[in-house]
């Protein structure tokens, strides 16, 4: 509950933030709804905490030709409340409104969610299924990576020291249908297995969370049997923990993949 000593910086521009983040043992503080908790245990104790909350340019949702440009510091609540999201890709709001609770949603951000990449997080599989593109700023300028390259491991992403995720681009929905299914601790609690799916032209693109270090992407023809078969063929080797064994997670992945595809709208 008690953090190690730290230095705190509050840049007001992406450039300043990137400069600060280049320092040894600096960490970006987004919503802080995961990082601060980890710091309370002192399992992580960054020497410099770079608070991104005063960089206005990192917040906001813009619709561009049906696609959405979401600033990394956009909160879950802003996504839930956004007219742009409701019009362009409502699944984002539907999933965001099941993240933790309203207090967390008022602080937690999409950027923090994907960058922390905890296996139980909601946005990594959703970003992977929807084919999100993520823009990362560094001292050499910006680069954009696809969701599948973005997630590298547990707590590891393509954002390297000295870099900063600035925005998440969600492609236009077009004729696609999006779905989500999960089994959690209690109702809408911590994920045991999360599945996001998007279906277009009869093909489902499915991303399964909490069965590996990064979301596992599977594609299949969009009927329940084909989906379950495809997930089985992926030969998942999920971690087991106090909430679910590997075997049960593997089973849930099949069931939930079929449900996510079946319920896609």
């Amino acid at each position: 509950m008690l953090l190690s000593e730290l230095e705190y910086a509050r840049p007001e521009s992406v450039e300043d933030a990137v400069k600060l983040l280049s320092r040894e043992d600096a960490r970006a503080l987004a919503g802080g709804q995961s990082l601060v908790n980890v710091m309370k245990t002192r399992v992580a104790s960054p020497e410099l905490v770079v608070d991104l909350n005063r960089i206005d340019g990192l917040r906001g949702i813009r619709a561009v030709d049906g696609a959405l440009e979401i600033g990394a510091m956009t909160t879950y609540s802003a996504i839930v409340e956004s007219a742009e999201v409701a019009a362009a890709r409502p699944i984002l709001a539907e999933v965001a409104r099941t993240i933790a609770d309203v207090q967390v949603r008022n602080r937690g951000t999409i950027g923090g969610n994907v960058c922390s990449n905890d296996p139980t997080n909601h946005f990594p599989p959703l970003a992977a299924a929807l084919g999100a593109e993520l823009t990362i700023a560094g001292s050499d300028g910006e680069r954009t990576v696809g969701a599948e390259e973005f997630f590298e491991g547990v707590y590891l992403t393509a954002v390297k020291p000295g870099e900063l995720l600035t925005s998440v681009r969600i492609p236009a929905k077009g004729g696609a249908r999006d779905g989500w299914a999960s089994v959690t601790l209690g109702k809408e609690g911590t994920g045991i297995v999360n599945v996001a799916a998007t279906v277009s032209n009869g093909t489902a693109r499915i991303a399964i969370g909490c069965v590996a270090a990064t979301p596992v992407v599977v594609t299949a023809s969009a009927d329940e049997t084909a989906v379950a078969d495809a997930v089985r063929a992926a030969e998942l080797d999920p971690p087991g923990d106090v909430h679910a064994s590997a075997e049960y997670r593997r089973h849930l992945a099949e069931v939930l993949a079929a449900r996510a595809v079946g319920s896609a709208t």
Partner: protein
Amino acid sequence: MKVEGTREFDAPAQLVWDVLNDPSKMAKLLPGVESFEIQDDRHWTAAVKIPLGMGGLKLNFNFEKLEERPIEYAKLSSKGQGVGAIVAMETQFHLTPDGDRTSMRWEADVRVAGPIGSMGQRVFQPIVNQQVTNVLNALEAQVAEAKGGGTGGAEEGIDAGSPEAYSSDPEGPTHSTET
């Protein structure tokens, strides 16, 4: 938690054995090594910072070679202590020569105590797999270097700043059990 797997090396067993049993080479296998000190040929210590996205986990490790049967078997104990975590690991290597190549079967029994130990095994297990893969990749690079054609490729795997991406590497851990 027990993890195990096999890995093939394009090098003779003696060479793999030498890398595995040279503490100074061993040092380069560890993720995020910040300092390394050899006490004697059976004991050495290292300060490491295991890369985690939230910030590195700093641990001071004591290594002890428990058993060896050149050039086929070695057993190593390592105990790491840091704020919030105590890691105890017993690693065994079995080498089987196959002409100019070597097959290595390995097992590690990893035990984590302290606050991090209860922080969620679903996270812990992939992290262990991730680190093991890094170690194996680094080992492969070390073996290649010892063989003569050495490149700096191995360094990537031990750089805390840019750890090797974890993927379901067929040569990474093949089996892990929750125990």
